[in-house]
């Protein structure tokens, strides 16, 4: 496989992406053979919608990890932003105001994370772990066990609506993928993010404003959490204190399965998208085949290990 890819002159990252697409296709084919419902149009559309929810969250995280950092607070950020957006929407009757509140909240949290990491020099793991707890505490206190439910159809369109027969979140996913990839590959700032993650000292020496780029990616991660929270809110039609509990791990899984390296400097948004699809397809398959949910963590864990190990082995074999 690698020699064939080398013959076609694929860059290592493209090779990695191709490998993952092949794996996704294999899993998909397997499921299609075993379950007649898998290839149904509705099922595929549902899959895409489910994957887009994970991807929106994981996209910001990808940028943070590319830059050599980590953000554990995204799930809690989604909960807080959604609850805030819901409250504002109910209070003002304006979906626009609610969306603005949710996005602002997400960005603010991202900014706090970024400042803790860049100015106060707290390690990202601890900084975002700390903000996770603080966000949870604030959200529980604020919601006091209540649920806010019932939002205007105009807003709900964002999460549950269809446009041209395709779920709206899928368009958001494509949009984020396109804009994000353009940003990363074709702007100076984007390239600087890769450089910072790849070799911070060298980047700093060549004039990259390393701290500012780091702050930027944390803010983007927070902002994407804010956006994801709006889509979740629209999809679920309700806000609760423990929304998004399981999302952080799913987003991390999507990023890692997608081939982004934790050491920074390697990875793509397209990879994260494929990672999100792999996770979603596997879960969908388990539902269709009525496999007990108890096997989920195990299967997910194995997929993460296998995909990262495959990368490590292929890098070793081609002498990267």
């Amino acid at each position, binding site marked *: 496989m690698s020699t064939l890819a080398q013959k076609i002159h694929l860059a290592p990252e493209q090779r990695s992406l191709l490998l993952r697409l092949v794996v996704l296709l294999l899993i998909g084919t397997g499921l299609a053979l075993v379950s007649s419902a898998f290839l*149904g149009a*509705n099922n595929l559309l549902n899959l895409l919608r489910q994957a887009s929810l994970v991807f929106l969250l994981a996209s910001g995280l990808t940028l943070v990890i590319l830059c050599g950092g980590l953000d554990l607070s995204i799930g809690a950020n989604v909960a807080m932003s959604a609850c805030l957006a819901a409250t504002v929407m109910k209070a003002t009757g304006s979906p626009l105001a609610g969306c603005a509140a949710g996005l602002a909240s997400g960005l603010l949290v991202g900014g706090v994370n970024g400042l803790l990491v860049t100015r106060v020099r707290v390690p990202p793991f601890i900084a975002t772990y700390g903000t996770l707890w603080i966000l949870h505490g604030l959200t529980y*206190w604020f919601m006091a066990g209540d649920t806010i*439910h019932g939002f205007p159809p105009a807003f709900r369109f964002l999460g549950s609506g269809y446009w041209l027969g395709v779920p709206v979140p899928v368009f958001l996913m494509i949009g984020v993928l396109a804009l994000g990839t353009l940003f990363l590959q074709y702007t100076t700032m984007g390239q600087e993010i890769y450089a910072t993650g790849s070799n911070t000292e060298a980047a700093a020496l060549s004039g990259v404003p390393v701290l500012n780029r780091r702050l930027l990616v944390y803010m983007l991660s927070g902002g994407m959490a804010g956006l994801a929270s709006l889509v979740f809110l629209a*999809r679920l039609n309700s806000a609760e204190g423990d929304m998004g509990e399981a999302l952080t791990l799913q987003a991390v899984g999507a990023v890692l399965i997608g081939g982004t390296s934790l050491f920074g400097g390697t990875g793509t948004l397209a990879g994260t998208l494929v990672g999100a699809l792999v996770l979603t397809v596997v879960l969908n398959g388990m539902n269709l085949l009525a496999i007990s949910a108890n096997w989920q963590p195990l299967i997910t864990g194995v997929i993460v290990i296998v995909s990262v190990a495959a990368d490590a082995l292929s890098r070793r074999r081609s002498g990267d």
Partner: protein
Amino acid sequence: MKLKILAGIAALILAPLASAQGERIAVFTKNQTNPFFQVLRMGADSAAKQMGATTTHLIPTKPDSIPEQMSLIDDVVIKKPSAIVFTPVDIKAMVPGIQKINAAGIPVVNVNDRAEGGKFVAFVGSSDHALGVVTGRYLLQALGGKGNVIIIEGVKGSGASAERVRGFQDALKEFPQVKLLASQPGNFQRLQALQVMENLMQTHAQIDGVMAANDSMASGVIEALEGANRKAQVIGINGTKEAVDAIKAGKLLATGDYNGYLQGCISTMAAIRELRKLPVPKEVIFPPTVVHKGNYQPLDVPLESRSCPKWEEVVKS
């Protein structure tokens, strides 16, 4: 609401300084996120206020955390409240903790989830199984005794989920012409139930009814149905405000009333009565009621304006 929170903070700062008036009841619930327990806590507070006692709430910071509830028990044994009202986060794992409370001589009332060991003054709750049966039966009768149904279970391994699902299945036995297509867990989570339902709708073209083990999941199922432009009768259990709203809007057929508020009221009253040497029955199990379009009004009242009924009205000796 905000004013209440500020007042609460002021109270907690001043509390250690004030001398304790009346009995101090420590109320253990599973988490801060499930609206059901919020309602239970409010019932407990209301009952205590009515009877001149005070309540403290002990809730794990990580939802449903077993080691944390264990630590809370350790801490509470030091503080020695007059009595304890206790919902175990796990009916088996918390037994040693309950035994510790017993050893410390603090009277304890079991509420909501029946623990599998330990000595209690009383158990106050609703029968998950009975609720499953009556709510399931209501759905199947609404379907005219035939069609296809799906069960959405709760958390695998949770006593409440197992009992409710058992109730659903017993109701199904009464209607042999109804076909059970699938029974899958939604983990009591809205989003999961939504996605499970979405996926199940792909494999089954005709679904007439869905029995969800709690209201959050029922809401998720309704969202999935609406998103796919399909119709089915849906029932949930818990009797939350959201469920009542959905019934009013015609989206939810019915919900089983889990009586969270009453559970809080009666269990706290039972604890206080025990301290005042008044008679307390060993069990208070609320009769299972189905809340539907015809009888939701009593539940459609904002919680702040509800108050506990008199003990004698509820407990017939």
